[in-house]
């Protein structure tokens, strides 16, 4: 195998603590078992070592990164090291004072997540009363001169409001809006039957988005991402395993992608025990699914294997029971039926009678205790 290039992205998941309880949250369902957070010194070292390797984009996320009292210290150091610094936040805790401190620390950009265009749906989906707060925070971001990316996770329960969501984003002055359909991992996987939209909903949402693109021109960029369940080829997950992204979780575990910890039979290194260079180039966790050498059929002999690298390892594990299989989104996968069945089920008017599961520490512990 050829030597991989350096990581370009460091994703620092500072904490799993979060005041919101989103039903599509991408944090692992067992997050309550990994609450031992790295301290300030630990993060500063990660920032330095990853920058030395060549990482240039740095994302601070969580959970809710604003809950870390040392966020400004970390941002300042990242800025000093020459990273482009991104803060991914629900907005909770971002007041005038902290915005000023983050600006002074050199923060380059804030991505604010929105749940929906209506107060009822926002508050229901996040299980909190945060709708008015998001509006306030959006204004704060603009007033401090940051570029603003709004991130709205789309799904069955909010996708019909997409026009209103875009209109609201425009009023708030966003530069970019990501309307990305939920991906079915972690909490979203538990709630998939509630979240996977119908084919018709998707077609309508895309049409509305295109109308808005015409109207907005250059003022605001819209990114619309359909759920990969509706595709016949998988996405090139994380742009290749251990290729671009280095994720460090709150407890210091280093991962090629934030959901990779679920994969069986694979040890991931911790930054408390190993330097970032060794983690990236030498660890078993980062090397296992690099390139194409690990593939089984049908991927191994597939002419498209360099294009999508067999899709997502986590999805292969969740849906086909083996991370080295083709991602079942691919219609050449022997397990593709699992995906087409889920899509078929989604066309019904009430696909499930099970209750929605909200992302809370209590639920997480309950799920952990389950045999």
């Amino acid at each position, binding site marked *: 195998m050829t030597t991989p290039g*350096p990581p*370009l992205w460091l994703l620092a998941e500072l904490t799993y603590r979060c005041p919101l309880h989103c039903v599509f949250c991408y944090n692992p369902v067992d997050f309550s078992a990994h609450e031992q957070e790295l301290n300030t010194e630990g993060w500063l070292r990660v920032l330095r070592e990853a920058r030395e*390797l*060549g990482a*240039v*984009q740095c*994302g601070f996320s969580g959970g809710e990164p604003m809950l870390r009292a040392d966020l400004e210290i970390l941002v300042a150091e990242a800025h000093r090291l*020459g990273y*482009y610094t*991104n803060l991914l936040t629900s907005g909770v805790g971002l007041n005038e004072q902290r915005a000023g401190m983050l600006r002074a620390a050199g923060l*380059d*950009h804030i*991505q604010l997540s929105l749940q929906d265009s209506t107060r009822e749906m926002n508050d229901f989906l996040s299980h909190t009363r945060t709708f008015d707060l998001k509006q306030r925070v959006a204004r704060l971001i603009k007033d401090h001169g940051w*570029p603003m*990316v709004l991130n709205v996770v789309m799904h069955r329960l909010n996708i019909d409001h997409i026009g209103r969501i875009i209109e609201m984003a425009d009023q708030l002055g966003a*530069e*970019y809006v990501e309307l990305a359909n939920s991906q079915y991992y972690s909490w979203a996987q538990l709630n998939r039957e509630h979240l996977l939209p119908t084919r018709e909903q998707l077609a309508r949402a895309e049409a509305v988005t295109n109308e808005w693109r015409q109207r907005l021109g*250059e003022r605001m960029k819209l990114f619309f991402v359909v759920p990969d369940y509706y595709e016949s080829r998988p996405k090139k997950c994380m742009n290749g395993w251990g290729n671009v992204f280095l994720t460090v979780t709150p407890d210091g575990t280093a991962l090629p992608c934030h959901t990779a910890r679920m994969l069986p039979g694979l040890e991931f290194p911790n930054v408390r025990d190993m330097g970032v260079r060794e983690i990236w180039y030498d660890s078993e966790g980062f090397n296992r699914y690099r390139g194409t050498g690990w593939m089984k059929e049908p991927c191994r002999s597939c002419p498209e294997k360099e294009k999508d690298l067999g899709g997502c390892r986590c999805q292969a594990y969740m849906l086909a029971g083996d991370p080295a299989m083709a991602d079942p989104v691919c219609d050449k996968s022997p397990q593709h039926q699992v995906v087409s069945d889920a899509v078929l089920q989604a066309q019904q008017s009430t696909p499930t009678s099970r209750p929605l599961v909200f992302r809370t520490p209590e639920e997480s512990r309950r799920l952990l205790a389950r045999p």
Partner: protein
Amino acid sequence: MERTGSPRLNPLFRMQWEQAQQSWVLLYPEGMVKLNQSAAEILRRCDGERDVAAIVADLEQAFATGGLAGDVNAFLEIAGAQRWVVWK
């Protein structure tokens, strides 16, 4: 199409030299573009002071060559469409 006026780097973008990649890059929210050498040389001169003619003259002098106006204009058009530069 030729534009008059002075282009400058859009303040939403940041340009810097990356040692690990041995190249100039443009950084923006959650993304990055790697610039080839000529793109980088043009963009570095987009300071909102120099107009296109001055940028061309400067480049021709720095690289001891002539006839760069066509290339510079073509690049600036792309850069404008990508919103890398804005015009004063």
